[in-house]
């Protein structure tokens, strides 16, 4: 209908423009598209205010910042906050905890979705595959509060696991409150929550592998394992590298919510990570300058790591991120 009407419109002799048409110069093009800027403006404003404006707030890292005096009134202290940070044992503890948890997650939680994707992909029954996907995706959409509440109920000190262990004579065990195994607990929770969701991207990568490769390999006598080893796994390398680069960029970031929620149960000694340290020192403790400095340094290290990892990946012939 639209097309018909527009065709009729076209047949009419072109009217003389009543006012001079805007030129083809930049200003003219911008004027002609003025409506489009109205679409961009509100969303862009959001990013300016809530993503870019706070970057300026990092100057608190170089001040003895006081909320009452503001950025203008607070005294400048140069790099004092950074110096104080490096001599604060609490920072080093938080850094160590962060790295221990992060490394555990890169070693165990990162490859888990690849293994699960390979397993589900090897299932012949489409129905079983779909049921499994439905089950393993679900926890991703639950909040950390819910996930930890569920874990608390099942494996906590009053749950069925502790009950079973007590009956077996292991005494009273509460894995939710054990500082020694906290990094393992956190990693297990990450796997439980997100292993299924992580498979989505690997499934996409697997489905992009041309089936002829499998066909000809099978014709040449390659069994299922050989096909996984020589076709599927190499096909997953680019996306794996991409995700690994992203993960390395956030090696100093481990789930803030997840850990904050469990801190009362295990104590700060084992569970204080950089993000929770920044939160408690700054928002709770009012030591704004030092907390900002710690957060800023963390952000800079993350950016440097992501750029370096990307360059390394490119040099080794992979596609890289940017």
């Amino acid at each position, binding site marked *: 209908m639209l097309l018909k009407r527009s065709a009729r419109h076209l047949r009419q002799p072109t009217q003389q423009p009543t006012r001079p048409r805007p030129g083809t110069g930049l200003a003219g093009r911008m004027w002609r598209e003025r409506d489009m800027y109205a679409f961009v403006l509100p969303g862009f404003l959001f990013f300016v205010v809530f993503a870019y404006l706070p970057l300026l707030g990092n100057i608190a890292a170089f001040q003895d910042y006081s909320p009452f005096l503001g950025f203008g009134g607070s005294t400048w202290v140069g790099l004092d906050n950074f110096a104080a940070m490096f001599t604060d044992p609490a920072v080093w503890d938080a850094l160590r905890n962060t790295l221990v948890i992060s490394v555990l997650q890169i070693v165990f939680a990162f490859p888990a979705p690849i293994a699960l994707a390979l397993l589900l992909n090897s299932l012949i029954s489409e129905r079983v595959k779909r049921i499994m996907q439905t089950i393993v995706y679900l926890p991703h959409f639950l909040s950390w509060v819910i996930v930890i509440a569920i874990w608390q109920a099942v494996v906590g000190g*009053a749950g069925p696991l502790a009950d079973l262990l007590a009956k077996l004579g292991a005494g009273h065990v509460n894995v939710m409150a054990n500082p020694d195994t906290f990094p393992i607990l956190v990693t297990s929770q990450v796997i439980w929550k997100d292993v299924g969701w992580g498979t989505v991207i690997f499934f996409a990568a697997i489905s992009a592998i041309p089936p002829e490769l499998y066909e000809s390999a099978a014709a040449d006598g390659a069994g299922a394992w050989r096909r996984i080893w020589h076709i599927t796994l190499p096909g997953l390398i680019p996306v794996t590298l991409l995700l690994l680069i992203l993960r390395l960029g956030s090696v100093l970031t481990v789930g803030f*919510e997840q850990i904050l929620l469990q801190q009362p149960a295990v104590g700060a000694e084992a569970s204080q990570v950089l993000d929770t340290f920044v939160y408690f020192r700054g928002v709770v403790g009012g030591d704004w300058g030092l907390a900002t400095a710690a957060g800023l340094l963390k952000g800079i290290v993350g950016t440097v790591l*992501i750029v370096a990892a990307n360059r390394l990946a490119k040099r080794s012939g992979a596609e890289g991120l940017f």
Partner: protein
Amino acid sequence: MTTPLWRERASIPVRALKGVVIAAIIAVMVYPFVYVVLASFGTNNSFKRFGLVPSEFSFEAYGSILSGGVVTRALFVSIGITLVGTALSVFLTATLAYGLSRTREVPGTRAVLYLVLVTMFFAAGIIPTYLLVKGLGLIDSYWSLILPSLVSAFNMVVMRNFFMRLPKELLDAARIDGAGEWQTFLRIVLPLSKAVIAVIALFYAVAYWNSFFNAILYLNDATKWPIQLVLNQYVLQGASLSQIQNPEAPQPPAEAVQMAVVVLSTLPIVIVYPFLQRYFSKGVLTGAVKG
């Protein structure tokens, strides 16, 4: 999809092994949910620790927390935040995505696109963001749960990809007919994009429903807490819910009350989940990755 000829059935031991692994995965993923739901219906008599099926069922726990009070109010707060936030987020994401969908023709929009994309790789930090929200006077305001996370760059990219794949002829036809950009957007682009709008709306709704980080940072006033904070306070940190709810009525077991709160806060997710799932396998996500 038919199974290709080369995908023969595995040998018996391999199949058995796979079966065991699959069963173990199902058990680990499903048992916790079953346990929580059953425990929420428990009574004082039926509370057996390791059994799956309680001997008697009761709705006391639900009655107790839904009869008004902390949990009921928190549920309403969360519902309100989710509805208002999702509507605003979807609108702003769609308009931004449309505005950035013709970077070739509209000068300056490519730069805006890059500025938005870059935000996927950095965050300003907890403290500077907190100071900004405080500076805007949003502490203890419900807007602090909505405004700081209004638009996600990732969702914007997904929508932009969808808009860019709409047939160009259709949009040109509308323009020749004299439709302005807003008319084109409202009458043609949006109606054709129902699927992607549904997915993005669900993603935002899930995020708002789950919001905990913003709430714990910006809401000091406990009477404004959304359900996730109430869940943390009364289930994880073990504050007693029964006492503040209805002191004189007979109390259902504390475990049942806690589990009922968990069930109620999970319910909306479980309800929208089938709708979500229908869409995201259709390559919405994979389309975005290589955007």
